[in-house]
């Protein structure tokens, strides 16, 4: 059991490692935390997710751009991979689950990967299907995992059109599931036209929208 002071110190070091994209520091601090018996969940949520929240703010304010954010995510995963096996199952407001992937015919997965890092750091379970994903695979994965949200990425008009076909396929199997779509050609009009629930223009906004939808879903289930 670590002292409160030590725990705070480890959290701060994990945050700094992520914010300053220091992969070695992140890995070493995670190892030290495990050795010291610190709670892995607290280290992940307060340390790594706390750091990634600052990264999101820096991205929003154009202090950080794509390369910096990718390196922050690299530091995050270096620590997360070590901490994950030590996280004990708990039920304290677990975040949601998402199915995430890039539409068939499209290999632009940069935005998708940033979203994955930000969602995972915030405690969500992400079922990442990768890029150039066949439509039916999204449907099957949502059913298999009972995920709350399906997130579809398309960077070209040629791949975007698949979304129009896919949304009814998903909603037919599970009308309550929420659909978020994103990518260069996608706007509010596309959301309306294709029957999606929401779009987001970057990863931090995607997380905010997902939190909002999850809350609405859970209120609906409780009612």
């Amino acid at each position, binding site marked *: 059991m670590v002292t409160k002071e030590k725990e705070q110190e480890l959290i701060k070091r994990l945050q700094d490692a992520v914010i300053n994209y220091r992969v070695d520091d992140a890995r070493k601090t995670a190892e030290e935390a495990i050795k010291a018996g610190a709670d892995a969940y607290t280290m992940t949520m307060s340390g790594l997710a706390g750091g990634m929240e600052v990264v999101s703010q820096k991205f929003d304010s*154009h202090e950080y*751009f*794509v*390369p*910096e954010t*990718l*390196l922050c995510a*690299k530091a995050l995963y270096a620590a997360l991979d070590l901490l994950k096996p030590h996280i004990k199952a708990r039920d304290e407001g677990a975040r949601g689950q998402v199915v995430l992937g890039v539409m068939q*015919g*499209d*290999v*632009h*997965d*940069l935005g998708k*990967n940033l979203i994955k890092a930000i969602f995972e750091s915030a405690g969500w379970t992400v079922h990442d299907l990768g*890029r150039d994903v066949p439509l039916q695979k999204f449907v099957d994965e949502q059913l298999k995992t009972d995920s709350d949200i399906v997130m579809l990425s398309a960077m*070209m*008009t*040629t*791949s*975007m*059109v698949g979304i129009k076909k896919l949304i009814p396929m998903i909603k037919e199997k599970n009308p309550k599931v929420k659909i978020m779509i994103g990518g*260069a*050609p*996608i*706007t*509010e*009009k*596309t959301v309306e*036209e294709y029957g999606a629930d929401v779009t987001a223009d970057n990863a931090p906004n995607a997380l905010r929208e997902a939190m909002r939808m999850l809350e609405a879903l859970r209120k609906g289930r409780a009612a």
Partner: protein
Amino acid sequence: MADQMTSLERVATAMQFKEADRVPAAPLVCGASHRFSGLTYADWSRGTDIDAMVKGHVDALDMIGHDGVVLLIDLSVEAHAFGCEINFPEMGTAHPNYDKPFIGSHKEYTKVKRIDPRKTLRTKSVIELAAGLSKEIGKTHAIVGFVYGSIGVLSMLRGPEAFFMDLMEHPNEVMAAVEVVDEVLMDYTKAQLEAGVHAICYDHLYGSQSILSKPLWEKFEGQSVKKIADYVHKAGALFGFHNCGNGIYFDMSMKYGKPHFISHAYVADDVDSWEENKKKWGKSTTTIGWIPPGPVAMLGTPEEIEEECKAEIEIYAKGGGFILATGCEYGPNAPLRNAKRIVEAAKKYGVYK
């Protein structure tokens, strides 16, 4: 009112910040022209039947009525010439096989060797296409050559995600490769100009707030742009940029490229509206834009397309320096009738009194 100028005269006049007979229209019907060629999109992208591609562009001009042709096939053309394995989906845009990147690690940037774009795969096709179009329409329509920028090409060879991290973790290895790519892009630019294009459009996709910080972009691509822009200017041709990112670095574009035009989908990073963009940059460079390709050109109703075109003309057309276009390539699968609607809107609302 009937047109009073040829398309080429109209475009040239607009780029001199003068009012032509009407606002030129160029909805970037690049890949979409395959639908006039008798080729599948995959075969069009392979670039093996130049005669059919010339015919496709010429017939597209005839049917749609736009004022110029841009020689973009897709962004993987240059990477292909360097040896990158490319996938050609039947109904999608050709792209690198990112499962087998040409540059597998930061140590492999040395694999990027100088090649001759006049003799290699699809860069050769683009040069031949330029020559074919020059013969057919060179006296009447604007023909714009296309070069994907050096760091764009390298990101295709390496895979974008790894490449962006390499920019910060292995800058020297990247920079050495940039210099090799620059030499090839210079040869490619020269060859397109010799084949008869009137202008070169350099795609500096990462020079915007969407991807790289301004200092990082400047460090890696500023000089690449300058070399090519200086050559094009000296050759007496027009030089410009395409960039569909958000918050484009107009100041950097001006510093290194002194562009006659910028084809863009969003405003510059130092302004907040199109009105401000016109005020700040409208006398320095011609704006080609900015109809959204997805929601308007592809999904828009006839009324929405007309309304968008009218609004853009009202904001930007006064005094020239404006070409009505989509902010990025017209969807290769988008309804072609909508491209014609854009030209019709330029004729209806863009006549200079």
